[in-house]
């Protein structure tokens, strides 16, 4: 594949990954809003807060992306077209560091220590485990 074709393919795979991340987040917000209004709490602030308000979609995309990238690293030759498009493109676009950091920083700013700690450590522990599992399953 030419260098330009490769760059375009990585960008397109990144767009697909990023789109999947945002769609999952939107679906989760819609689900929460529906649950909150059925519970008679349209603002979603009181009864269904707590764990329901924890950023689950962010954790899911980061763990899934880490697992897939781990598998790609173990199963496909490094630098091959598929490894680059799936790894740097799709996995890179699906997973995100900036939102994770800002969510944790926002929790710190609001003095929600438990949320900040669980968001930070949950992603690190589960992400590293998922990546290691992907590498192991690929036989690396």
């Amino acid at each position: 594949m030419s260098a330009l074709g490769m760059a375009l393919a990585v960008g397109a795979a990144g767009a697909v990954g990023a789109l999947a991340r945002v769609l999952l987040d939107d679906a989760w917000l819609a689900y929460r809003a529906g649950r909150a209004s059925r519970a008679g709490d349209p603002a979603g602030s009181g009864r269904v807060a707590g764990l329901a308000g924890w950023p689950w979609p962010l954790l899911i995309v980061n763990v899934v992306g880490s697992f897939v990238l781990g598998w790609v690293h173990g199963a496909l030759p490094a630098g091959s077209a598929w490894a680059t498009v799936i790894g740097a493109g799709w996995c890179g676009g699906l997973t995100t560091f900036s939102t994770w950091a800002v969510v944790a920083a926002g929790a710190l700013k609001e003095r929600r220590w438990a949320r900040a700690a669980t968001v930070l450590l949950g992603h690190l522990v589960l992400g590293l485990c998922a990546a290691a599992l992907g590498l192991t399953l690929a036989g690396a």
Partner: protein
Amino acid sequence: MAAGGFLGALARYLSTAGLSASGAELATAAINVAGALALGLLTGLWSRGRGPGSRRDWVRAGLGPGVLGGFTTFSAIAVAFADPFRPWVALAQALLGVCAALLGLWLGGRVPSRERGAA
């Protein structure tokens, strides 16, 4: 949004392509911390009704989760630090990112709110 993801992923790929493994690791760390700072700054500005796209949802979605979400990556650091297993380096990068995001939020939040009705 998808266009933002395209640009972000493309920019990350071009910044890391051709680098050695350790070079790409450093470049990814720089991208992640810079992206966290930028997203914190934008989030802070938007909370004050300022900054690019403060009145247009699609611009905010395209810039935040789109460009910056696609630019920064979690999977690359998870795999890099899972093999060889170096959880402390991953934690250090995470804490650096959170500090950058806090700095961004703080800087963005210092900007005075836009007056209602002003241009």
